[in-house]
């Protein structure tokens, strides 16, 4: 019917044309399919490796894992710095349905303070997305238990365990161990200077003081890595591979914690420091500076209030007086000077002088007084040490001259760092002509030398320097660096650290050592000795020297570290001794600020420490 109506149209021609166009369309479609396939071939086959790597890069996140910090032991294996598990309440904000209500509920449940909430809000702004934010750190076990019972009510909130540094002996070891605290900008620069950025990638705390700072690199250990599979929101799905971190080295110190605690108990409220060492190797058995403070305050960030209390304390607890306190060595260095006089033959063992209570140079009006106004009468070099006669040493110093004194005392380490394993150390001052010219642009006067002759004037030394110098005398000139580190603990075996020796002090006449040591023993043994009273009825023999630094005669702006003379003008009391005399096992320095005479104030403390170490402690072992 239709065909009849449309007679003009050639249906078979139409059909053929349509078929040709269809075939062309098929050809065109095949062409496009070829284009698609060749593109896909290029993506999936040619560039497969590239895209596979990129897909893995999307999916795999490598996160650093912090190593456990090395543990620190005392010489008997008692832990004095450890890593304690702590529990932190952490919130994964993205997984919390309603943060405000959750916070309010947690606040009520765990009795959190407004400060906790405020700190959380601060941390939240700093934290990267999809990283949990800490709401409460260091939770008590009770709070952990309360939260655990209600955990099902809090999506996205969890208690996470981590390790935190803890110093079980608190303030007793602060100045030895120092502390770790949050890594700051300056620490980051330091780490960069070691080239250790990647090793610290997961580390939060770094040693800031003491042993923690000095042995930071050994205590820290080596970072580990975990390969995590993450989704597009950064959430961890599973751990693919783990390269465990290597824990830091466990250190064993020469410190004996019981002795350390005993020393602390002896100082009570007095400002000053006590250092005890083993003269046979320079090992530091105890080192305490008073007042001290609790290092645990710093570990998780000290509060502004606690910090300003520490900073504003006039007794300056942050200072480690044992290595940073710079005092006039006073009479403590008389044995050293005596050695020098004998060596240079300015005096002999037989030289005697008449001490009238003062020393005066010819044609000079100024007189240098002996501490004993009436004088010590006729004294030789040995007795001058025992009674601490100033006049004898005034004259000897005058004869020696500053250049000899400077040269010889430098050999004992005065004016130089002892290189004890603490970075906080001060070097004191061993004055010389050159030093005075550089410092004050003034010539050296003879009077300056005479003051140096009794350890006053421009001469300052730290307690640890003085202790080091007495060890040198004990060892007839052999010098060991004072050292806190005793050994490294590996698999419960102590691997001793090598001893560090310094250049020995050379002498021409070795018998001079014996003379000086005999004088120090008699300072304790003989009734006229300045330390006799303090050591009456001791069950062991001991040797020592008292020192009383007269601060009033020292110009404030001249030499001594301002901290020492800033508050009071009372004398510093000092005692430097060792025991037993014939085979010394310990040497002790006691340096008390503004405490009065050394014989009556410092020597008794030294006696207690020696009693403890040689008596009680040995009796028990």
């Amino acid at each position: 019917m239709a065909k009849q109506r449309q007679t003009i149209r050639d249906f078979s021609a139409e059909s053929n044309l349509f078929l040709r166009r269809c075939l062309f369309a098929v050809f065109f479609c095949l062409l496009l399919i070829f284009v698609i396939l060749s593109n896909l071939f290029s993506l999936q086959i040619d560039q497969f490796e590239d895209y596979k790597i990129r897909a893995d890069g999307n999916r795999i996140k490598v996160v650093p894992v912090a190593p456990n910090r090395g543990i620190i032991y005392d010489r008997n294996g008692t832990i004095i710095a450890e890593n304690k598990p702590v529990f932190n309440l952490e919130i994964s904000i993205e997984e919390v349905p309603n943060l405000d209500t959750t916070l309010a509920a947690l606040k009520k449940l765990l009795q959190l303070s407004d400060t906790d909430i405020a700190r959380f809000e601060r941390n939240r702004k700093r934290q990267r997305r999809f990283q949990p934010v800490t709401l409460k750190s260091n939770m008590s076990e009770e709070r952990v238990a309360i939260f655990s019972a209600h955990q099902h009510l809090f999506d996205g909130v969890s208690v996470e365990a981590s390790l935190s540094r803890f110093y079980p002996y608190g303030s007793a070891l602060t100045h030895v161990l120092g502390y770790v605290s949050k890594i700051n900008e300056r620490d980051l620069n330091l780490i960069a200077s070691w080239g250790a950025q990647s090793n610290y990638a997961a580390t939060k705390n770094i040693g800031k003081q003491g042993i923690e700072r000095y042995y930071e690199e050994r205590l820290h250990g080596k970072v580990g890595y975990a390969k995590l599979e993450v989704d597009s929101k950064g959430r961890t799905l599973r751990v693919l591979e783990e390269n465990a971190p290597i824990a830091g080295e466990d250190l064993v110190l020469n410190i004996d914690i019981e002795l350390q605690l005993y020393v602390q108990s002896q100082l009570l409220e007095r400002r000053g420091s006590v250092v005890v060492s083993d003269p046979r190797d320079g090992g530091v058995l105890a080192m305490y500076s008073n007042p001290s403070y609790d290092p645990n305050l710093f570990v998780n960030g000290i509060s502004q209030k606690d910090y300003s209390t520490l900073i504003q304390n006039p007794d300056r607890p942050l200072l480690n007086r044992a290595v940073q306190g710079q005092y006039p060595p006073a009479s403590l260095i008389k044995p050293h000077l005596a050695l020098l006089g004998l060596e240079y033959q300015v005096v002999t063992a037989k030289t005697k002088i008449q001490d009238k209570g003062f020393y005066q140079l010819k044609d000079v009006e100024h007189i240098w007084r002996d501490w004993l106004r009436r004088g010590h009468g006729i004294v030789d070099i040995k007795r001058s040490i025992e009674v601490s006669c100033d006049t004898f040493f005034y004259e000897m110093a005058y004869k020696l001259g500053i250049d000899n004194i400077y040269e010889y005392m430098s050999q004992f380490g005065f004016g130089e760092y002892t290189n004890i394993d603490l970075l906080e150390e001060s070097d004191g001052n061993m004055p010389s002509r050159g030093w005075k010219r550089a410092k004050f642009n003034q010539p050296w006067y003879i009077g300056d030398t005479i003051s140096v002759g009794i350890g006053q004037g421009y001469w300052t030394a730290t307690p640890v320097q003085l202790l080091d110098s007495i060890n040198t005398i004990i060892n007839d000139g052999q010098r060991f660096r004072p050292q806190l580190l005793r050994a490294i603990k590996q698999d419960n075996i102590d691997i001793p650290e090598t001893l560090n020796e310094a250049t020995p002090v050379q002498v021409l006449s070795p018998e001079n050592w014996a003379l000086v040591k005999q004088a120090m023993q008699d300072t304790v043994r003989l009734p006229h000795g300045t330390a006799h009273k303090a050591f009456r009825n001791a069950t062991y023999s001991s040797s020592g020297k008292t020192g009383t630094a007269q601060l009033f005669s020292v110009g404030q702006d001249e030499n001594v570290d301002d901290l020492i003379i800033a508050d009071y003008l009372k004398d510093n009391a000092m005692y430097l001794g060792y025991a037993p005399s014939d085979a010394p096992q310990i040497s002790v320095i006691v340096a008390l600020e503004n405490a009065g005479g050394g014989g009556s104030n410092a020597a008794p403390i030294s006696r207690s420490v020696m009693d403890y170490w040689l008596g009680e402690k040995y009796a028990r072992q």
Partner: protein
Amino acid sequence: MPVSKTGIQQRDRFLTKIHIDGWLLAGLLLLMAIGLMTIYSASGQDMALIKRQLIRLGIGLVAMFLLAQIPVLFYRNISPFVYGIGIILLIAVLAIGVTGKGAQRWLDLGAFRFQPSEILKLFVPMTVAWYISRVGMPPSLKTLLTALLLVVVPTILIAKQPDLGTSLLIASSGIFALFLAGMSWRIISVFTLLIGSFTPIMWLFLMKAYQKQRVITFLNPESDPLGAGYHIIQSKIAIGSGGWTGKGWLQGSQSQLEFLPERHTDFIFAVFSEEFGFLGVIGLLLVYGFIVGRGLVIASRSQFLFSKLLAGSITLTFFVYVFVNIGMVSGLLPVVGVPLPLVSYGGTSMVTLMSGFGLLMAIATQNRVMPR
């Protein structure tokens, strides 16, 4: 042999009776199965999503079946009227339509939302086929210009919504009908040149900022790897990391770990490529190729010009869907919102597609009973 041949003939007769083309139906069902499997993986094994897709596929199959029963002559006769209604609806969309995702595409009919541009996907080729079948082929220049006008009006109206993907598909469906009708090669060349010179005008005056952004991103996705380029970069990583054999079903890290955007909708091809690799892709393209081939066979077997042009146009437009989607997902073409037909999760376009196949089936099975 004779027994089984009789069996096939009986089956063919039964399918013809209910107006179903068996080969085409088999291809479509295979695609749907592939789609469901891939959606299951892409959605993170979301059974609720699979159920919703099953319902849509069911609706699509029912629509196809029902439309296959209606005489082709009826379609031919109503073409100009439905076209007119379609244009009115498109104008209504621009006037009072509902806005969503930065575009105004829907009419709110109270109970449900209705997207008139979808039905135009069928009405435009129907109308062009109707027009050409009235005047005969090959078309004269005047016929051609009139037919082009029929195509251009809805194309522009839809492009203004803006819905670049759909307007592109509608323009192609009309142009395919004209091409199959024997539009002369000389005119085709002239128009190609015209479109070429029109491109800068489109860029300057017609395209919206976000459309321009898509083109810029397409030309250099790495320029904005976390922003506009993110989709295409992640998609290429997914496809590329599939390799020859893929990572295995449910094993694609790009899709399972949600790095890939629009995983179960427009970018489902990337999921498929990642999990089934280049070999899987060849298989998928074979299925599409088979459906296109079957569609063209139906078109050329039809003895009715309206049917030929409509069937050819529907089939080739279906192929354009496939090409544009795979092209954009694999970085050959800019990202326009075109789903992978019958595989992507989605509602309206699926029903339209299945309706188109309903028309194809009507054409395939009613040839012999149609008056010439």
